[in-house]
């Protein structure tokens, strides 16, 4: 109840007025979260459906990823998989303590894993038959089937190890007023939708080796503010209200570069924009038409004109840092308008006077679905114009994000502009698997050869190398069938006040999270 009173006063402007001009503390880093990380509802990782950088600071996972998506030891010192994929053994670090002083050991991990049952994340352990505590620092998962997602899932923020006792004791309030992990920072306060304040865990010495500093962290306090509106966060950087923007919206990049003392840097992101085509609906049931549409997308023009030259021009379905993205060159989808036109000619779609193609008197008309927020409309309008250059007449239809998913299930769509956030190759299984037609498999792609390659990749990969090799084969086959066309791969833009923040030279994690913060320093 006290929490609500505090909000009430802040809302009435009284409390806020008093604390309005609070100076930035010398040993406190104030950062604005990036747009995609705004709106986290709880730091209970089994209840949250989104996470932000704070979850990676409060909790350590068993394993972490480095910048190349390789796995590095975190709370697990090492791990091995049985040759048949039916057993995983994790050897845990010793001397680790949770924020509340409780020892971290195999029993804690077992109790934490047991809490997955009954949550929306139960499927993370869907293939786990039994959790076995071998000794104090060894835990074994016995599997019913091999699970290619297991390591990945354990390395995400949702794999952050929570102290089971605290989670049980705090009940509904866990994740809001308290969150107990083993991470480099402790949760001091969390005002949902506004800010998260973290204080350094001075006992932290067990940081994963993808950061140079393995603990404790350099910065004493971190205040993470949630500013939904892009222009506001930019103004806050300008006026010194924040030291750092963890996401600079595209439209402010050039403005931010002009600010004195402000430096910009880019980080890889986890997002791919793409055009998906329904392979069962005319005209995209003809692979030549699909290929033509895919070749008509001018990625360079989109990157240069919509995003001021920032970001990447993807030629596959995956973000560029994933090893499974490295397909043979012949499978990469690249802009080639002449070839697109030739393919449409070959398929019998002849150009008319107005540039729109027709076949048997029927114009090459398609509807292009998209979501109603302005980012989607922007990209879709450009795709519409680019498809027109090849002879497609595309009508745009906009839906809100929940309605559009439902509409896909009817299977009447022809093409849609979409984006996804993910950084594991298993995304192919999710979006192109024959058992999820409609949604999430919007392309309705269901091909026996693809299903076979998918099965090999998903269940037949014994080692990391095999996983990569099998997924490349699956990826290449999907690319050859053109159920989609890549559009754009954003990068994360970070802006920081160079008078305040000393950025490490290299950041060895896929996105800006724990490893980066560990090496971050404040200037005095």
């Amino acid at each position, binding site marked *: 109840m006290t929490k*609500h009173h505090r*909000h*009430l006063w*802040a*809302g*009435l*402007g009284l409390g*806020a*007025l008093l604390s*309005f001009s609070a100076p930035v503390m010398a040993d406190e880093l104030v950062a604005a979260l990036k747009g995609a990380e705004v709106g986290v*509802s*709880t730091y209970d990782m089994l*209840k*949250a*459906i989104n996470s932000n950088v704070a979850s990676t600071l409060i909790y350590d996972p068993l394993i972490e990823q480095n910048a190349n998506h390789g796995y590095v030891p975190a709370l697990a010192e090492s791990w091995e998989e049985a040759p048949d994929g039916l057993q995983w053994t994790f050897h845990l670090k010793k001397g680790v303590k949770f924020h509340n002083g409780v020892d971290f050991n195999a029993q804690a991990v077992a109790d934490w894993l047991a809490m997955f049952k009954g949550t*929306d994340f139960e*499927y993370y352990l*869907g293939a786990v038959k039994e959790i076995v505590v071998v000794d104090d620092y060894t835990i074994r998962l016995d599997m019913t089937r091999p699970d290619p*997602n297991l390591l990945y*899932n354990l390395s995400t923020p949702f794999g952050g190890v929570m102290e089971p006792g605290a989670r049980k004791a705090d009940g*509904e309030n866990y994740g*809001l007023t308290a969150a107990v992990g083993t991470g480099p920072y402790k949760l001091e306060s969390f005002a*949902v*939708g*506004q800010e998260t304040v973290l204080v350094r865990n001075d006992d932290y010495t067990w940081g994963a080796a993808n950061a140079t500093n393995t603990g404790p962290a350099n910065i004493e306090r971190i205040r993470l503010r949630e*500013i*939904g*509106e892009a*222009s*506001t966060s930019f*103004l806050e950087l300008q006026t010194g209200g924040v030291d750092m923007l963890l996401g600079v919206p595209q439209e402010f990049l050039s403005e931010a570069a002009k600010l004195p003392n402000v430096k910009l840097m880019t980080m890889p992101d986890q997002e791919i924009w793409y055009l998906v085509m329904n392979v069962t609906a005319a005209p995209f049931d003809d692979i030549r038409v699909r290929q033509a549409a895919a070749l008509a997308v001018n990625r360079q023009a989109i990157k240069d004109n919509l995003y001021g030259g920032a970001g990447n021009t993807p030629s596959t379905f995956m973000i560029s840092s994933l090893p499974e993205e490295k397909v043979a060159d012949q499978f990469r989808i690249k802009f080639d308008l002449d070839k697109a036109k030739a393919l449409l000619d070959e398929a019998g779609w002849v150009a008319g006077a107005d540039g729109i193609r027709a076949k048997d008197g029927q114009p090459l008309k398609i509807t292009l679905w998209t979501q109603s927020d302005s980012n989607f409309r922007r990209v879709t309008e450009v795709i519409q114009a680019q498809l027109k250059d090849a002879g497609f007449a595309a009508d745009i239809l906009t839906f*809100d*994000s*929940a*309605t*559009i*998913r*439902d*509409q896909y299930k009817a299977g009447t769509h022809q093409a849609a502009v979409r984006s*996804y956030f*993910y950084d*594991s190759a*298993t*995304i192919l*299984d*999710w979006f192109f698997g024959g*058992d*999820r037609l409609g*949604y*999430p498999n919007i392309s309705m792609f269901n091909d026996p050869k693809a299903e076979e390659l998918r099965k090999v990749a998903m269940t037949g990969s014994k080692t990391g190398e095999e996983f990569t090799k099998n997924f490349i084969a699956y990826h290449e086959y999907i690319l050859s069938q053109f159920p989609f066309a890549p559009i754009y791969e954003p990068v994360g833009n970070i802006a920081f006040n160079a008078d305040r923040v000393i950025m490490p030279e290299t950041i060895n994690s896929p996105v800006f999270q724990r490893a980066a913060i560990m090496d971050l320093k404040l200037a005095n």
Partner: protein
Amino acid sequence: MLGFIIKRSLLLIPVFFAASIVAFLLIHLVPGDPVDSLLTVGSPPEQRQILTERYGLDKPLVVQYGIWIWGVLQGDLGTAIIMRRPVADLMADALPHSIALGASAFIFYTVIGVSLGVTAAIFRDRWPDRAIMTGVLFGSTLPSFWLGLLLMLVFSVWLGWLPVSGARGASSLVLPVLTIGLGGTALVARITRVAMVETQRKDFVMLLHAKGMHPLRIQLLRVLHHALIPVVTILALRIGFVLGGAITVEVVFARPGIGTLLIRGIMQHDYPVVQACLLMLSTAVILGTFLGDVLQALMDPRARASLT
């Protein structure tokens, strides 16, 4: 009088239930449910069914409504499906912001509107009257989101005086309050002016004039006092709209509040959030109307007769 209030308040009960049915049905009629938004990469195909059952979305609509309204009557607004928190908590976080904005704007347009209306009435049919009434009309016709963006452009981007958006500190209230306030001012000013002008024509005012009382004294003490009755009634009716009227402005200024919560809920089809917020907004209007009716009846016995 008491009998009238009791009778009138009993009528509120069926209206409340009707409003709850509308609030419930509206969002359930939108195609698609929240479950798809919860499916994360790698979840098995049967996950959809599991979640649908977990959130009770497989039950017939009537049953879902029954469960919800039964909870509401016991003070339990349910838990948000996508936002993952008790709806009551979400609303408790959002309401103070909306109330701060709505109440400030309400006070703003009441004070400014009554002052302008009184001034216009005193100078009836002379240039200050015309200038005020035209100015007020302009203010009322500006679309709020454009006015908001315009104010933002001038005061935040060009002049850099005030924060662009958000809800940090009292200064962030200024632009949103102005945006809503300008529209409301017109209504209040118009009604005040009309009520004043009507009172000016009454016999007792004529008498006071004949007695040689100072004209300004008559206007401010006697006429205004009398003319305030309809103004207060209208303002009471408006109280219910204070929260709902701020929705667009909240979104434009990216302020936390009931409006932004609702829009987010609608976009994600977070049923419990949308239902609860809609029901609250509509109940506020229903209660505001009730309050207005009662005030009117208290002040004017004839209206009581027509209402009962």
